[in-house]
Structures are given as structure tokens and as C-alpha cells.
């Protein structure tokens, strides 16, 4: 008898809880934010969330209605991200999804977008598979792998000392890492840059102790290493390289921009990381400086490129909804094609041809930071600025 009571009770409780959530407030424009708040990239996810929240606050209202952000933690796990997206769209009624850090999660969402039927704008997914993947899927964020590869190879060719080096390629073992590594190797071979291991090495994302990989690099006798690691892990790898005395001897070139907070933690050991990325707080333009100070006042943490991309992506999305005049998915998608926004790193335009952004970028190298309001010890010094056309892909 006791058993029957407990089971019917628990089912009743479930139904009551479910139905009680259909309360109707004055309906704001609901936007679903998917960022990793736990797991290896939690810091990057937090910075993305800050960028989007800052954009929402700055924008204020869309079509006269408030903006309501629903934030969910993807835990960098594709199955969890898909269920959270379903919750955001079906339960919370979000009209658009924004965010997503890793390519794996981005691709999983893209393959489920027909069920969700809402536009999805990624602000940190770099895989080249996103070009024209789906009419409802857009990218306005970090440079794609092909653009970064172009930036890095151009940067290497421009410096005679880097051009002669032989590069050892080491990537994180997931979709983005393979894509970034392969892109660089193909482009480098075209330009005559020597690659030591064309079958690039793959390291698990959770790797903490890089000593076995570093001994391989030491054994190979190369004088350069090209790494495609998640932003937060780059300074950690650089620190262990310097622990093993390779900092001076082996030049590190990175496919992604290292996170500023991690650079601070790494300190001097992280000097000398070379690589193309969208933005760093060393960029000296009025728009960039204004945005940096606004971010610093609001969050009291060093402004990072993850925050900048998400801010710009959010602004593009909000403006597109404004332009579309409604929250209908197809209308927003139509408005997103070709929309552009002048943010911290110049004009960012979403190409109508392949739904992915085109924007200028900078070539940076980490070194001691000059006097700055953020108290940062390490900066990503801007060496050269690339125009959008230079990085491609052609339209």
C-alpha cells in the first residue's frame, strides 16, 4: 500500500510543478544564452556571458520591449547543450540562441536546429564547417580557423626569423583542434614553411601534465611550435614550456588568443606567444578604449576577446531583431544576413553568402604590459592589423 501512495504522489507533484510555470509577465524579447560555466573553459564562458549582458544593458530595449536573457550552462558537453537549448526554446520561449564556446557543441546544436526552429548566433565557434551550414545558423565572434591560419602564416612570412623555423604542430583532440591544425599545415606548406610533424599530435583536453609532449618537442629539435589549444590552456602550456627551459629556444605560435586572466597567472613565462586574433586591449582606437573602460567599470576584470566577440555578436543579433521588426525566426535570419556593427575591433559584418562574419584582425605577441588602468602585467602587443579582405574567405 505504501508503494502505491509514494508513486502516485511523486507523479502528481511532477505534473503540478510543470504546469505552474506558464505564468505570463509583460512579455519581453527572450534570448537564450548558452555558455560553459563549468568544465575546462568555465572562465571563457563567464567572460562571454559578461559581454552579452553588457550588450543587453547598453541596448536597453528591442521593438520597445525589454530584453530578457536566459543563461544556461552547456558544461562543454554537446548532449547537455542540446537539452538546455530545448529547454530555452520550448519551456522559456526564447526567440533566438546566442553564445556557445566549443565547435563540438556548436555542431551538435546546428544539427538540431530544425527541431528548435530559432536562429542561433555563435560567438566563439571557430570551425570552418560553420560556413553556410544552415540558414538559421550564424557566426559573429572569434576568427574562423581559416582566417586565423591566414593571419598566422602572413605574420610568420613577414618576419624573417620566424620564416626559417621548423614548426611542431600540437592540437587539442576535438573538432576545432583538428580543423585549426590542418588549416595551418596546408597553408604553411603552400608558403614553404617547414612542418616537423604533418600528422599533427593530438592531446586530450583534460591534459594537465605536458611533460611528455614537451620532451617530444625537445627530442625533435624543432625551434618553433604551433599550438591549437583552448584559450585558458595556452598560458599553462607556455608556463610548463618555460619550466623546461624552452621559452627562449622554441617560439610558440597560437591558433587562438590566450585568455588575459590566465596570462596574468602565468606571468613572465607566457611572454613571446605570437598569433593572430580579433582583438586585445592593447588596440588603441577610440571605440576600443571606450569599450574597455566601460567593461572595466562594470566588471572590474581585464577585458578579454571572448567578452568582446560576445558583445559584438549580441549587438548584431539585437539590431537584426530590431531591423526584422518581429521575433519570427525567418525574419530575424533574413535581417541577420549582411548586418554589421562598429564595435571595439572595427566593423563586423555578417556575410549574406555564408552567414559568417568578416572583420579586421590584429597580429599580437605577448610581452610585459605598459602602464594600464587594469593593473595587467602581461599584454598582447599589437604588431600589425589585417583588413577583412586580406583574411577572406572571398564572397
Amino acid at each position, binding site marked *: 500500500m505504501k*508503494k502505491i501512495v509514494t508513486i502516485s504522489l511523486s507523479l502528481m507533484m511532477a505534473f503540478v510543478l510543470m504546469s505552474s510555470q506558464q505564468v505570463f509577465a509583460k512579455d519581453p524579447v527572450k534570448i537564450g544564452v548558452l555558455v560553459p560555466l563549468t568544465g575546462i573553459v568555465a572562465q571563457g564562458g563567464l567572460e562571454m556571458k559578461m559581454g552579452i549582458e553588457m550588450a543587453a544593458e547598453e541596448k536597453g530595449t528591442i521593438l520597445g520591449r525589454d530584453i530578457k536573457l536566459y543563461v544556461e550552462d552547456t558544461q562543454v558537453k554537446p548532449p547537455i547543450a542540446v537539452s538546455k537549448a530545448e529547454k530555452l526554446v520550448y519551456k522559456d520561449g526564447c526567440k533566438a540562441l546566442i553564445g556557445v564556446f566549443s565547435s563540438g557543441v556548436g555542431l551538435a546544436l546546428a544539427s538540431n536546429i530544425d527541431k528548435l526552429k530559432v536562429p542561433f548566433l555563435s560567438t566563439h565557434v571557430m570551425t570552418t564547417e560553420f560556413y553556410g551550414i544552415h540558414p538559421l545558423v550564424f557566426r559573429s565572434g572569434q576568427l574562423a580557423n581559416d582566417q586565423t591560419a591566414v593571419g598566422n602564416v602572413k605574420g610568420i612570412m613577414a618576419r624573417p626569423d620566424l620564416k626559417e623555423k621548423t614548426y611542431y604542430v600540437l592540437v587539442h583532440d576535438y573538432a576545432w583542434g583538428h580543423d585549426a591544425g590542418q588549416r595551418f599545415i596546408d597553408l604553411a606548406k603552400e608558403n614553404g614553411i617547414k612542418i616537423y610533424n604533418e600528422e599533427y599530435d593530438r592531446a586530450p583536453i583534460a591534459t594537465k601534465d605536458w611533460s611528455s609532449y614537451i620532451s617530444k618537442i625537445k627530442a625533435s629539435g624543432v625551434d618553433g611550435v604551433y599550438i591549437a589549444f583552448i584559450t585558458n590552456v595556452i598560458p599553462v602550456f607556455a608556463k610548463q614550456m618555460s619550466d623546461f627551459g624552452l621559452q627562449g629556444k622554441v617560439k610558440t605560435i597560437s591558433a587562438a588568443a590566450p585568455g588575459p586572466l590566465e596570462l596574468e597567472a602565468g606571468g613572465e613565462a607566457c611572454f613571446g606567444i605570437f598569433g593572430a586574433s580579433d582583438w586585445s586591449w592593447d588596440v588603441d582606437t577610440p571605440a576600443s578604449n571606450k569599450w574597455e573602460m566601460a567593461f572595466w567599470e562594470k566588471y572590474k576584470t581585464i577585458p578579454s576577446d571572448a567578452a568582446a566577440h560576445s558583445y559584438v555578436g549580441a549587438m548584431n543579433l539585437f539590431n537584426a531583431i530590431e531591423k526584422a521588426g518581429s521575433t519570427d525566426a525567418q525574419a530575424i535570419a533574413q535581417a541577420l544576413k549582411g548586418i554589421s556593427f562598429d564595435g571595439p575591433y572595427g566593423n563586423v559584418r555578417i556575410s549574406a553568402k555564408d552567414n559568417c562574419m568578416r572583420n579586421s584582425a590584429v597580429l599580437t605577441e605577448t610581452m610585459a604590459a605598459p602602464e594600464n588602468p587594469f593593473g595587467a602585467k602581461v599584454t598582447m602587443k599589437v604588431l600589425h592589423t589585417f583588413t577583412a579582405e586580406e583574411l577572406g574567405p572571398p564572397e
Partner: protein
Amino acid sequence: MNSTTSIPGISKRFYPLKIFAVILILCSLALFPFISDNRFYISLITEMMIYGLLAMSLDVLLGYTGLLSFMHNTYMGICAYAVGLFLIHISPTSLWLACFAGVVFTSLVALPVGWVQVRTGGLAFALLTLAFGMMFYTIVWKWYAVTGGDDGLMGMPNPDITLFGWHLGSSSDPVNIYLFTLTVVTICFFLTRRIINSPFGAVLEAIRENEDRASFVGINVRRYKLLGWMLACILASIAGALFILYKGYIGPSTMSAFAGAGVLMMVLLGGMGSLWGAFAGAFIFIYIQDYISTMTEHWEIFLGLFVIFLVLFLPTGFAGLGDYFKRFRKA
């Protein structure tokens, strides 16, 4: 009362009431997708049913044969990958053939593993499941060319659900998947209940109660432990086939040690030794995990406290039959 063929100890009281409760629950579940068109709850309940089936398969092992498995979700994952690869590479339309191939493949994998597993018992058995589970997890994670590594299987087609040529609907629509899952899970539930109450089930319970004595009563303990293991793995692989049809995606994180312990908690939450308890445990665990993680960034703290509270103050789980586990208790 003691006619020569009746078996004492099986309470016949409230039998009609039990049947009524079961029918009530099944009907309400069957009608739910038509009552509320909120697709989030439809897919949430589908996920709960799938994990309920997986928890029940673990309960066949833990609650009825007394064998603790840390990573029973490994065999769900293997079957999901097998079904997915079959649909992607061999034939994107034949749903039943893919599921059948998946279950058969998983059984072929589970058999040799089971042969090694049943040579041990108690904690050694549990740690061995962890070792094999982590081995399959690492293989799936590293075999990038076939399994897509950390990003999981991409490009899953959505075959139509057809029964003897009768077209029921495409598997991309959540309501069809919900009903398909409900029927398959209900069939598995009643089949397993039948098996548990059969002479074979009695042998499993004897092994759980006292493995040593069982071999001295003429039971070939290793063979029956292996059969119990195969039954549990086949049920888990069915859950795997349902999972990939529902989710359209499978990744290594579903096969991880972290998820494996989650399934174990569902069984403990629902109370070991009761098949429907496993379903209750799955329903409650998934609802709480989903609910807490949206509430706060630090959901791990609360999930940890919840588990500690559960083990300290409610060891027998909600269904109150956990004391089947006396055998392990040292008192």
C-alpha cells in the same frame, strides 16, 4: 491457503488496486503529449523514460543479482554508437534493422567482458566494470575517424518509424519518439518483471542472497551470473538505441564514469530491488539535476549535499525496498 501448488510469501492483497495504479500511470503517460503541447516536457519525459530503462537494467544486476556496476551506461553508449554508425554508413532508413544490429553488436561485446567479469564478485566486480568502462570510453574518445571523438557522432539521419510496413511517423518529431519510447519501455518493463518472477529470476535472487550456498545447492553460479549480466546489458543496449533515436546524437560524455555514477544514484534513489523504483529514481534524479543546474552556477555543491543527505537519512530510497542489500551490510 497451502494448496500444494501455491507459493507462500507473495502477497496477493491489493492486487486489483496495483493493476489499476499501473493502468492509470500508463494512460496518463500515453495521453500527456496530446494534453500539453509543451515540447520541452515531452522530450524531458522521454529522456526520463530512457534513463529509467537503463536504471532498471542496472537494478536487474544490482538489486536482483547483487552485482554492483559503476559504469553500466557503457553498454548503452556502445549500442547508441552502433545504431548511429549503422544508420549513417549502411542504410539511413531501416530503423528496426539498425536497432537490432546495435543490440546484437553490444551483446557480442558484453559477452566476453561478462565472461571475465563473473570470475569476480563484490568490490572486485565493481572496480572491473570501472576498468572496462573507462577502456571503452577512452577507445570511443580516441577513435576520431569513426566515432568523431569528443564531438560525438555527427550527421545522424532521422529514419521513419514503420511497423510491418505501416508508417507510424518520422523519428524527427518528438511526439512520435515519445510514444515509440513509451511502448518499447513498457514492453521491456513487463518482460523484465516476468523474467524476475520466473525460475531464472529465483536463481538470480539466490545468488544475490548467498553466492557460496547457491553453488552448494547445485547452481552453476558463474553461468547464471553471466546470463544475468547479459540480460542487464541487452536492456541497457535497448536504452542506447532509444537514446540515439531520441537525441539524434551520442558523445563520449554519455559513456563517462560521471554519467555511470549518476545511473547508480538513480537506482539507489528509487530503492534497489524494485523495478518500478528504478523508474521513480530516474524521474526524480533527472528532474532535480535539470532543475538545480538552471538555478545556480554552483549546482555541484547542491547536488553533492543532496546525495550526502540521501545516503545518510534515506538509505532505502523512496520505494523502501533497499534492504535487499542486507547481504553487504556487515552488522
